[in-house]
């Protein structure tokens, strides 16, 4: 990237330009696995965001100390420490959510968003920027999967965040809370995201032309 990274641009990058779910297509396993209810989406997203922010910060701080050859094991140790913290915290204070998310919480250790950001961003950038990157990516991920989960919950059970939205006569579309529904909804959302991105780029190019 020719432009110099600033904190706001880094934040925005994770939210929109390089949205982990719709642009980078990272972390597909939790994206498809836990998004059967909006609450799970938010819980998963926030847990991942916490780990992402902390691991980005610490890996960036340690980036000049970690020898290149053992960087992957070192990243895993940093990431796993924060995942353990989140896991224990959720078991203590949010046991229901923790049991709903099941093994997906310990599996944050191998979530490829976190690895990708550690390897491609935090290892090369100063701490403050890395923190902003983690926050942007984490919130981008949280918003995407919560939206996906809300749509699936709406059609699959007729509720959003557990509150009845559809009329009583609505017959829940069972496939939406099952695996195929996750794939179909994600695909359709990706179509919309790509179409939106294309139209924005077109408009921006037209504006540039008009200015020139």
């Amino acid at each position: 990237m020719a432009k110099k990274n600033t904190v706001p641009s880094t934040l925005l990058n994770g939210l929109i330009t390089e949205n982990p779910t719709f642009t980078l297509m990272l972390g597909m396993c939790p994206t498809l696995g836990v998004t059967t209810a909006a609450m799970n989406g938010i819980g998963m997203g926030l847990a991942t965001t916490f780990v992402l922010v902390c691991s980005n910060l610490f890996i960036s701080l340690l980036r000049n100390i970690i020898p290149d050859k053992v960087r992957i094991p070192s990243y895993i140790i940093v990431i796993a420490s924060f995942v353990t913290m989140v896991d224990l915290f959720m078991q203590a204070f949010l046991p229901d959510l923790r049991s709903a998310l099941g093994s997906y919480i310990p599996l944050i250790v191998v979530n490829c968003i976190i690895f990708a950001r550690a390897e491609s961003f935090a290892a090369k950038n100063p701490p403050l920027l890395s923190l902003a990157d983690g926050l942007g990516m984490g919130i981008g991920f949280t918003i995407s999967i919560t939206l996906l989960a809300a749509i699936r919950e709406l059609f699959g059970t007729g509720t959003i965040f557990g509150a009845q939205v559809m009329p009583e006569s609505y017959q829940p579309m069972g496939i939406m809370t099952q695996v195929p529904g996750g794939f179909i909804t994600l695909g359709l959302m990706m179509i919309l995201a790509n179409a939106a991105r294309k139209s924005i780029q077109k408009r921006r190019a037209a504006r540039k032309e008009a200015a020139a």
Partner: protein
Amino acid sequence: MLKNLAITSSPHVRSSATTRRIMQDVCIALAPAGIASIVFFGGSAAMIIAISVITCVLTEFLYQKLMGSKITVSDWSAVVTGLLLAYNIPASAPLWIPVVGGVFAILIVKQLFGGIGSNFMNPALAARVMLFVSWSGIMTAYPNTRFMVDEGMDAISGATPLAGLAKAFAGTGAETASIGNLLLGNVPGVLGETCKIALLLGGAYLIVRQVIDWRIPACMIGTVAVLYLIFGGFNFELTVKELLSGGLILGAFFMATDYATSPQTPLGRIIFAVGCGLILFVIRFGEKTYPEGCSFAILFMNVCTPLIDRWTAPKYFGEVKKHG
């Protein structure tokens, strides 16, 4: 003189088989089963068929209009999808079922993957499975035919011939529909898979017109027959009943033979059809939660079709097998 010599590149001999002609043939072949379903289930069957066809055609038209692509509604393929979808819905289903199914079949399974010829699954079958998984209560509430009510049975029994047969094979119940009733279609079931005579008539028409390859239905039904004979203790009567129950005949003649989702080569088609029969048997015979496996079997083999095509691709004349 020279202007009479038209110079074109090959092929020089053109067949009259256009997509439109083929699809119209399929519609003609499906007509008897549709008429039979209206006779057996009454006006609600006609409504479901009409709504399903209209939804499919309209969805295709609107999508292509919105996308600004060529409108191919006149090739009749959406009509065939609509008919096949309707034949997979029980007559008691509410009318939004064919609407949801039709939009899913055309929009998601067919058009989003590139339209006719590019879909990787049979659209009508994929929609049937989607409806079945989502609203299994509605999709398996099979009403009795109009001629069965007279015999003093419940209006909605829910017990399909297949459920009875599964019990008969297991030796825990002997009450099965007679072969005559199965052939006529005087049994509970979805619209199109009840009247076997009408379906066989339509299938024969398609084979005579060379619209479909006889290998696919023959191998699929043959595989199921052989497996039932072997594992059912050579009980011929029950095996014949099993062949005439559920969606096997409809699936073998009209769904498994879909051009876009079945292999191109003769050997590939045999592998495909045997695979369909095998999976159908495994689900019907082994799996207790699903009494019918026809749609799952065909969809699974649909997905395998590109692989089968690659294995069975004919070798070029003179091609030498590469070593090492």
